[in-house]
């Protein structure tokens, strides 16, 4: 095949066995790769208990990985989330996607549970299992050091074995496969790491067309202020967003009680680079290189992390923010959930956490020694036990990222409809509500947003299936990427054809969630946003969100998405999209 290798590796950890599947080409054309193919395989075991042998964790790349397509080798990792109970999936960079693809597999389906802690090593198509009981408490950098692997490593830290429901899988040391707690799933499976290395090439159907399509995208990337501009993420990382989100008065502050953080210019990306120095890094083959590393080797925090470990906790100590990020990486924990859980704890106890308290608590959570045991389960379970459920700022039990929904109504709707719980990346409305791409929309209005969000969810489901970087969609669109896809695979698809696949892939999420008991009730926002206003000022008024308007937009969304008025998938739509209705 062109684009794909046509081979999927199945690993059973209980039996320590592996086998190779060669699916029909049709399956690839329909689900593409990454999130799409993962979702297809997850659907088969979606209703199983997460700690059962039958539950799978999936690692899938897309057809463009291993080619010269701009925004290269990302990978999608998927399972059922222990934090939310929904589908749990995450797109991650580094070089794991490229290395995995080079092994000759498009993806890996891992089921079963090892009886002892183990690692999986794959070199080209050869799979071996390595017992590593002594590695249980090793932090991420220690794992990498011990392995000194030449390819790429996905590993979990101690938190995965210490009951942290928001444990990450870390790629190559500091690329987080975050949100949703997929590291915890590895913990259940007794899997400490997955190391891959390969030498196979991805074959390409039409190199000339690929070159042309690539140039079209690179031209758009150069023209994009967000990506390549003087204040763009190439220079400052996603931390570049800090000033803008502050100036729009939508920076979540003090556990989302306020939306403005004092003197933001003293806590912005520039100030971090000034204080800690900067080296530029990025995913393999990417020329945007949005990852920023401090001179001392610790990664500089990305926007979400930087904002939540400062504004959300009312913390103005930059060193502790960098350190908190580092600790989360080392223990393998999601920074958004970790910071937001601490913010909930802070509001609930009425105690503003000191910088050292923040970092100590993080270490304790990662080690499994925290006296507030439930902090490792995320803010929802913690606050509920304390009888203060409303102080957990979550959607489907997952902590919200650093865009206050009172300042962007598309974001509000997309938080609610996100199939993996509170997340900004499913529809990424920051693009038009804040960054003016492709054009600006009115951020304080729900008008038109139902359809906009639905379309954007399809686009991003496709991005995660092609496993391209979503940042590139600030500049280019599926119009250009469909040319790349067609040139690489020889399967001629237009932008709309890809969007249709995206719709199928996203709807599959809704089917999986509905089978696990999710409906309209969970597509909602914390009450705080409907009752309390944000921090108005500078001629920007930030009122609470009108509940009726929100509900109306959500109903419209259901209609546009082809769901019932209760937010449930329908048999007709499932059939139309070629999905599976019931097992």
């Amino acid at each position, binding site marked *: 095949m062109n684009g794909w290798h046509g081979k999927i590796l199945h690993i059973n950890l209980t039996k320590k066995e592996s086998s190779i599947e060669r699916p029909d080409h049709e399956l690839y054309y329909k689900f593409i790769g990454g999130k799409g193919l993962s979702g297809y395989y997850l659907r088969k075991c979606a209703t199983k208990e997460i700690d059962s042998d039958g539950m799978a964790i999936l690692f899938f790349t897309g057809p463009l990985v291993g080619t010269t397509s701009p925004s290269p080798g990302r990978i999608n990792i998927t399972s059922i989330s222990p934090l939310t109970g929904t589908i749990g999936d995450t797109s991650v960079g580094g070089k794991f996607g490229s290395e995995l693809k080079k092994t000759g597999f498009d993806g890996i389906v891992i089921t079963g549970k090892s009886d002892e802690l183990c690692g999986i090593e794959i070199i080209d198509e050869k799979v071996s299992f390595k017992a590593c009981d002594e590695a249980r408490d090793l932090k991420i950098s220690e794992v990498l050091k011990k392995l000194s692997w030449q390819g790429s490593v996905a590993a979990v830290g101690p938190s995965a074995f210490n009951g942290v429901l928001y444990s990450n899988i870390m790629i190559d040391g500091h690329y987080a496969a975050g949100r949703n707690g997929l590291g915890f799933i590895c913990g259940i499976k007794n899997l400490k790491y997955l190391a891959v290395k390969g030498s196979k090439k991805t074959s390409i159907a039409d190199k000339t067309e690929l070159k042309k399509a690539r140039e079209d995208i690179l031209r758009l*990337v150069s023209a994009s202020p967000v990506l390549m501009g003087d204040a763009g993420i190439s220079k400052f990382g996603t931390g570049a967003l800090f000033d803008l989100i502050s100036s729009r008065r939508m920076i979540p502050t003090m556990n989302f009680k306020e939306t403005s953080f004092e003197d933001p210019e003293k806590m912005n990306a520039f100030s971090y680079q000034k204080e800690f120095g900067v080296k530029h890094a990025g995913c393999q083959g990417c020329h945007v290189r949005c990852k920023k590393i401090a001179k001392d080797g610790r990664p500089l925090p990305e926007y979400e992390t930087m904002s939540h470990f400062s504004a959300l906790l009312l913390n103005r100590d930059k060193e502790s923010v960098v350190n908190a990020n580092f600790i989360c990486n080392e223990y393998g924990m999601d920074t958004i959930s970790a910071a937001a859980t601490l913010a909930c704890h802070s509001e609930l106890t009425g105690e503003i956490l000191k910088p050292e308290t923040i970092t100590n608590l993080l270490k304790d959570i990662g080690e499994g020694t925290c006296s507030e045991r439930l902090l490792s389960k995320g803010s929802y379970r913690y606050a509920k036990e304390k009888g203060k459920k409303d102080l957990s700022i979550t959607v489907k039990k997952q902590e919200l990222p650093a865009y206050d929904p009172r300042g962007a109504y598309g974001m509000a709707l997309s938080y609610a409809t996100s199939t993996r719980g509170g997340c900004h990346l499913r529809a990424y409305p920051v693009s038009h509500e804040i960054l003016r791409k492709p054009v600006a929309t009115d951020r304080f209005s729900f008008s038109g947003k139902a359809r906009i969000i639905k379309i954007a969810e399809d686009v991003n489901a496709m991005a995660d299936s092609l496993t391209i970087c979503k940042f590139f969609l600030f500049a280019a669109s599926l119009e250009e990427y469909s040319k790349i896809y067609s040139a690489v695979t020889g399967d001629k698809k237009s932008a709309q054809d890809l969007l249709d696949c995206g719709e199928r892939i996203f709807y599959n999420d809704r089917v999986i969630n509905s089978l696990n008991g999710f409906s309209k009730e969970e597509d909602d926002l914390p009450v705080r946003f409907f009752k309390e206003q944000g921090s108005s000022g500078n001629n920007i008024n930030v009122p609470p969100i009108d509940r009726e308007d929100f509900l109306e937009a959500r109903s419209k969304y259901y209609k546009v998405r082809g769901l019932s008025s209760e937010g449930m998938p329908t048999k007709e739509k499932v059939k139309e999209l070629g999905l599976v209705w019931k097992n």
Partner: protein
Amino acid sequence: MEKLINKYATKLLEAGLVDKDRFLIGGIDDDILWEGLLEVKGLEEIFDKLSINSLLFAKPKEPYGSIINFLSKRVLEENADKIEPKDCETRTFLHDLPVLNNYSTSEAIEVLKERKCVIIDGFGVITYGTVSPEQCFVTLSSVCFSTFVKFFSDYLKLKKENRSDKEMEGVFNFVKNYKGSYPDFKNTLSKDIFENEESVYSAVAKAGKLTVEYGLVDSFFGNVSAFYNGNIYISQTGSSLDELDGYIDACPFDGSTCTGLTASSELSAHMKIASDTDCRTILHGHPLFSVIMSMNCDKNDCENEGSCFKICPEKREISGIPIVPGEVGTGSFGLCNTVPPELKNNNGVIVYGHGVFATGEKDFNEPFKRLLEIENRCMEEYFKLVL
């Protein structure tokens, strides 16, 4: 949505792209809303089949109507299926303009699955938006701009080679006077613009508005900036130059905040111009004849043919105004590398296939005047060559 549909219906008229009874614009969230007096079958089906939220059908006004008809007919006669304008904005953002022989909803849908617009020969143009009807408007405006540039460029080339035909002559004679000449400019922009931050904001907005009023930009795009107190005040990316109030970013020269994340894609060029020269104001527009003349090159067998927009071995100029290559934004071929050096000795420069940068030291009267002068000069030169 209704408000936006109304707004862009009005803008289509104001921009002189269509007449009142010659378009239909629609938007959808869960239900479709239409505005316009035309009746066109099957447009609702397009909403059904495409992931879009707004749609425009337009029969562009003259001179665009005749130009588009001529070009689309030519394309079909040559058994091709797209018009390929060479100007920078089209190349970068629209890539090419697909053409259909007849109007059938299903064929239009197939084309729109891949591109942002379709031209239906002798019938009209369809464009769409995915988040706002603004995209419909912008795309139509770009189609009109780029086909105008293409027609006049093609005509010039064929004329020089004595190869223009009767039909083309006919169209040329019909459309040539539509643009007319630009009104005189009598330094009407304010003079004391550097009194305080407010006066800078207001001056940038006014300069933008006037540039649009004179028709020195396409799709209302271009960019405007002024330097004051360690900041550059610059129009935001994709902002409409006639509506800049509230859409100007203040970006510090020392890079100490990232508010410029939404600033124009030419922020880098403006920054460099400011640091390399004594200028304090910059205007960048896309005036038609400057763009057309910048692509008029007589060199034969140039080793760079086809890449002139990014590399050019010659030192080119028109009436003393330098012409440089350069792509939008940053990157190694970015105009941010080619424009600033030229502006050290000159207060105006043309970028190949793209537009003009003009600078001033005191206010916006100087760059505006220069921009207009350059365009007038290019227009004169053009007609000298063809008439």
